[in-house]
């Protein structure tokens, strides 16, 4: 090239000049083509830079040169140099970012566009440069916003200065370099993007897998929850333990597609066993002792022997375990439910219709169902206990009511008794108060007692006396006045009888009167009176006082002796004396 240029300058012939010009252009174009071809196959920026430097230095005949590529985002820089002493190269490498700052202070273009390379000739180079001072030409460029770079060339080996053509070629070469670098970087970027995309694809695939798994989990959980919900819906309206057990077994068998199975609940303290079974191997009722033995055997083969309340444990080797007790049941899965220490339950399921054993998830579901069943069973038991308590309470209430009724009656009785007692007490106290006093009642009572006793005794006494005088009870005897009596006496037609006792008679009596006391009537009548009387003789009797009517007594006795002419002297001896008739002594 140097020879071409010198030939161009020295050749005065226009034709030759034109030919030289054309040669030079051909040479330029060939160089560009060659460089372009050289760089085209490369994709590594460093190698591109290396090849470019080699080609550029070769074609321009530069003694030394360098290419710098800055990555402003990652703050990485590549340095490729030729013909620079190692010390200088090292110095450049150390000051690489101050070089960048020196040449790239202006605002960078926004957007991903790539700017055209800018040529800085020897004249416009700054005085101070961290680059070696003999740099003759420099190109700086930007590739989008991330990459920048510069190419620097030293003096030519020939010692000639750079000419216009050299600069033009350099600029064109710079264009090729920028294109190659941009292409390489773009390719690299795409590769990065591809790698990222691949990674992201892998991640997406994993995520898809996970999502699928999650969906399956979700489906399974939905299925579990649905089964549990169905079981709950099935069991919740039931309050009877037997019904609960049967319903639970049927639901579980339906859930897992099992054709035979059994479930039993054993209350050890109450010695009660409830058992239900379905399928061909239907088992009759089991006794409490059998159930006890079975439970011990089950406990032996249980996975968890802690017997914590409200736990479910799986039983190992169920077919063998239940073969003796339930021959033909072919139990594949069995669990033991510990509601509390005295209340346990066993559930055994035969082979599924599909013939596959229950999966881990199915067993988990079975456990969940069993746990739900335990809660219902416990509730049912509580309900039964409450019912039992209610029953007892109502009985106790009945008894209480009866007792209250009895008490009320007793209280009533007590009231009556209290009243009676109060009455009695008041009577007795009144009587007691009366002790120290004299009362009319006492007198009345004494009088009444005396009357009753006196009359009673008199009635019973053979020597009793009449209560009232005889004269008050029978017709009175006819009377005669004193004058008539005197006349009859004087005519000798009457006998006057003094009926009073002798001692009174002896005090004073009617003259010629015969003393016939009533008490001595019989004797005196015979001795004295009988002689004096004829049937025509009138007997005039007198003698009475306030307390005694002697005359009437004697008159009655005379009348009793059939003597009809008996008269009583009216007003007695007093009228006799008033008339002035004689008396004695």
């Amino acid at each position: 090239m140097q020879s071409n240029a010198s030939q161009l300058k020295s050749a005065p012939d226009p034709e030759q000049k034109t030919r030289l010009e054309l040669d030079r252009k051909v040479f330029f174009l060939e160089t560009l083509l060659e460089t372009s071809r050289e760089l085209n196959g490369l994709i590594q920026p460093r190698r591109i830079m290396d090849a470019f430097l080699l080609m550029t230095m070769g074609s321009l005949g530069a003694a030394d040169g360098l290419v710098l590529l800055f990555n402003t985002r990652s703050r990485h820089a590549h340095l490729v140099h030729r013909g620079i002493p190692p010390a200088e190269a090292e110095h450049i490498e150390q000051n690489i970012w101050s070089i960048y700052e020196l040449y790239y202070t202006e605002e960078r273009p926004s957007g991903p566009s790539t700017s055209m390379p800018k040529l800085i000739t020897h004249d416009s180079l700054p005085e101070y440069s961290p680059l070696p001072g003999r740099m003759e030409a420099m190109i700086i460029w930007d590739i989008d916003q991330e990459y920048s770079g510069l190419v620097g060339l030293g003096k030519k080996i020939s010692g000639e200065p750079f000419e216009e053509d050299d600069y033009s070629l350099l600029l064109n070469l710079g264009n090729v370099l920028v294109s190659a670098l941009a292409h390489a970087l773009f390719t690299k970027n795409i590769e990065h993007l591809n790698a990222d995309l691949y990674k992201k694809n892998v991640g997406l695939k994993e995520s898809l897998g996970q999502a699928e798994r999650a969906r399956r989990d979700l489906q399974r959980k939905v299925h579990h929850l649905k089964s549990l919900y169905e079981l709950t819906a099935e069991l919740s309206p039931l309050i009877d333990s037997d019904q609960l057990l049967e319903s639970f077994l049927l639901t579980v068998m339906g859930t897992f597609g099992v054709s035979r199975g059994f479930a039993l609940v054993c209350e050890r303290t109450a010695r009660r066993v409830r058992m239900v079974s379905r399928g061909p191997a239907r088992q009759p009722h089991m006794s409490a002792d059998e159930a006890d033995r079975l439970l011990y055997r089950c406990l032996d083969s249980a996975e968890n022997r802690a017997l914590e309340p409200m736990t479910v444990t799986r039983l190992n080797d169920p077919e063998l375990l239940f073969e003796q007790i339930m021959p033909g049941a072919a139990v594949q899965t069995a669990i033991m439910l510990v509601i509390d220490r005295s209340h346990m339950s066993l559930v055994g399921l035969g082979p599924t219709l599909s013939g596959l054993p229950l999966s881990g998830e199915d067993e988990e579901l079975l456990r969940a169902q069993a746990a739900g069943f335990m809660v219902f069973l416990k509730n049912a038991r509580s309900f039964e206990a409450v019912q039992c308590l209610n029953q007892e309470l109502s009985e106790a209430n009945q008894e209480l009511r009866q007792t209250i009724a009895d008490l009320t009656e007793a209280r009533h009785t007590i009231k009556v008794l209290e009243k009676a007692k109060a009455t009695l007490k008041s009577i007795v106290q009144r009587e007691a108060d009366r002790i120290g006093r004299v009362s009319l009642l006492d007198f009345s009572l004494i009088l009444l007692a005396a009357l009753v006793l006196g009359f009673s005794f008199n009635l019973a006494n053979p020597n009793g006396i009449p209560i009232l005088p005889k004269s008050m009870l029978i017709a009175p005897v006819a009377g005669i006045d004193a004058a008539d009596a005197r006349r009859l006496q004087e005519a000798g037609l009457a006998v006057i009888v003094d009926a009073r006792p002798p001692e009174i008679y002896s005090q004073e009596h009617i003259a010629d009167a015969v003393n016939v006391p009533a008490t001595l009537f019989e004797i005196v009548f015979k001795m004295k009176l009988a002689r004096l009387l004829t049937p025509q003789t009138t007997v005039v009797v007198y003698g009475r006082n306030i307390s005694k009517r002697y005359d009437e007594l004697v008159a009655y006795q005379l009348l009793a002796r059939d003597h009809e002419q008996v008269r009583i002297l009216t007003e007695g001896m007093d009228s006799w004396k008033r008339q002035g008739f004689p008396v004695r002594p």
Partner: protein
Amino acid sequence: MEKTGIPGKAVKRPVLRKAMTHPYLVLAFRIYIGSLFVYASMYKINYASEFAETIASYQLVPYWAVNLLALVMPWMELICGLFLVIGFRTKSAAATIAGLLALFSAAVAISLFRDLPIGCGCFHALGEQMSWKTLLRDLVWLGMAVHVYLFDSALQVEKRFALAIRDI
């Protein structure tokens, strides 16, 4: 207690009063009068007709009431006498007996004034002739009955009973 102003008498009177109203003395009077009436009633109950005669002899009772009285009065005497002896309703019994004695005394006094030639008939129909002594004796008995009425307190059947009742 009456104040006499003489120191010696002021002490003496309560002692005499105490002695006179001593429960045992009153008890003795009570039993004596009670027994007396029981004894007196025996004859009168057995021989009602004779007692009726006796009543009649006093000439104080209407003729229609004589037998009635002869039947009832002895039993009253018996009941009251028994009450006095056992200490039951002593106040009423003593009052009744005092009343009867007062009647008897009055009857005797009237008969004595009338100069009736009769026996008192207190114990027997054929008793001794009535005299002022009879009246005096009846008055003494009346005094005893009144004394019992006023001061009796010992050995009363009711008292124990009454004490027991008050405890209820």
